[in-house]
């Protein structure tokens, strides 16, 4: 039986680890390669890197981080942020990442999903979605709208429809981030997660809101998520990944306990 995955997310800016709270007031908390090694040793099932650097020369700093991570850990990891073309994807994959995550760029240019899937296989392309709860209206029947650029721009796209479109365009996985829950440490958006996960046939990683072990339990059970993304809960040393997995195992969730 497949295990549920626990995936720490590392935001990287100019080659350094940061953690944004609601996308504001980022603070540097360390070296991403060292953080990746620590989480690998704690039993992380995968690692997600978001490059929140804007300038193009800093992209080479990120590729260097990716190369050093690939020499250090032997579990899958993905890289997202600022990937605009198949060439950007290729550079990250050749540097050693398994998967590339596309988010705002895919909303602006949905063909990017197909192009990436065709060039590298569906399993390489993760569709990252930032979602905000809104009033239900004709173009947003689910009541969840896709937002881009860190939540600043509303797109008029329905989250559930976009998830299905991403799947049909060839995304191999969805990373579903609730902007409302992100950084609150008050729990995942269970309703959103269940809605999307039950209506697509590709794995869904729930993101945003993990503050306590119970939150992971809820999103993996009630939310039907295939994986849970975590950040502050481990970055600030409140818990180790091993603690979280021991808790989940004790509550009947199948997670990987041997590493």
């Amino acid at each position, binding site marked *: *039986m*497949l*295990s*549920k*995955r626990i995936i720490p997310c590392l935001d990287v800016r100019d080659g350094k680890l940061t953690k944004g709270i609601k996308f504001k007031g980022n603070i540097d908390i360390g070296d991403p390669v060292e953080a990746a090694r620590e989480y*690998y040793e704690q039993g992380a*099932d995968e690692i997600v890197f978001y490059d929140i650097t804007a300038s193009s020369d800093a992209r080479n700093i990120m590729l260097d981080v990716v190369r050093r991570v*690939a*020499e250090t850990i*032997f*579990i*899958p990891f993905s890289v997202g942020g600022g990937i605009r073309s198949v060439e950007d994807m290729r550079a990250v*994959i*050749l540097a*050693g990442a*398994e998967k590339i995550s596309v988010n705002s760029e895919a909303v602006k240019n949905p063909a990017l999903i197909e192009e990436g899937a065709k060039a*590298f*296989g*569906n*399993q*390489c392309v993760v569709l990252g979605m930032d979602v905000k709860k809104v009033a239900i209206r004709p173009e947003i029947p689910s009541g969840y709208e896709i937002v881009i650029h860190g939540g600043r721009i509303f797109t008029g796209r329905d989250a559930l429809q976009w998830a299905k479109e991403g799947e049909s365009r060839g995304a*191999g*996985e969805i990373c579903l981030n609730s902007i409302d829950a992100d950084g609150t440490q008050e729990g995942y958006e269970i309703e959103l997660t269940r809605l999307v996960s039950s209506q697509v*046939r*590709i*794995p869904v990683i729930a993101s945003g809101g993990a503050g306590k072990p119970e939150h992971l339990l809820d999103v993996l059970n009630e939310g*039907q998520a*295939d*994986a849970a993304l975590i950040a502050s809960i481990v970055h600030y040393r409140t818990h180790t990944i091993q603690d979280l997995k021991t808790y989940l195992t004790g509550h009947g969730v199948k997670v*990987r*306990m*041997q*590493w």
Partner: protein
Amino acid sequence: MIGIIDYKAGNLTSVARALHYLGVPCEVTDNPEILDSCDRIIFPGVGAAGEAMINLRSKGLDQRLRDWVASGKPTLGICLGTQVIFERSEENDAVCLGIVPGSVQRFPGDLKDRGGRFLKIPHMGWNQVEFPRAHPVFKDLPSGAEFYFVHSYYPAPADERWGIGWTDYGLRFCAAIAHENLVAVQFHPEKSGAPGLQILANFCRWGGQDAQ
């Protein structure tokens, strides 16, 4: 020296990185002469079976692979490399190398877990592999070890005795194959943490005999 066959099937550097970490010399190449001179072969890859076969044939690597396996050279298939050594694959309805009798089949769309929920395809993530009998390449693994999978098609050997590792994902499928000097795994040992590295290290020391 270990030869890693480069046939344009995804990123092959992760296997090379894992071998570097283990201190084992290796070369990623599509050059048949260099591969000929290697004492072991790793045949990795991700992607689609049909395209993989086209690339292998265009470089004459299809016949070379059959020859290397027949000659007794220890050979390890990984993921797509494992699928392509079968007779055929449902993916692109591809005729494959025919080294292992049997076929590669797609997970049925209506596969359900024990709770009655539809299972996601691809089978992506960590799952246990049960090894009912001992084998030098699969020794010294912690009990309950899990490995990283990502695939939508699974190997179905015609003779179950070729199977050495079995995994449950709505159905029981063959996750590892062993026959004489050939071993092949559907999961990614290079991405499966310490147990995966153990398998690679075992393969690098293995003489190619199935017996204990």
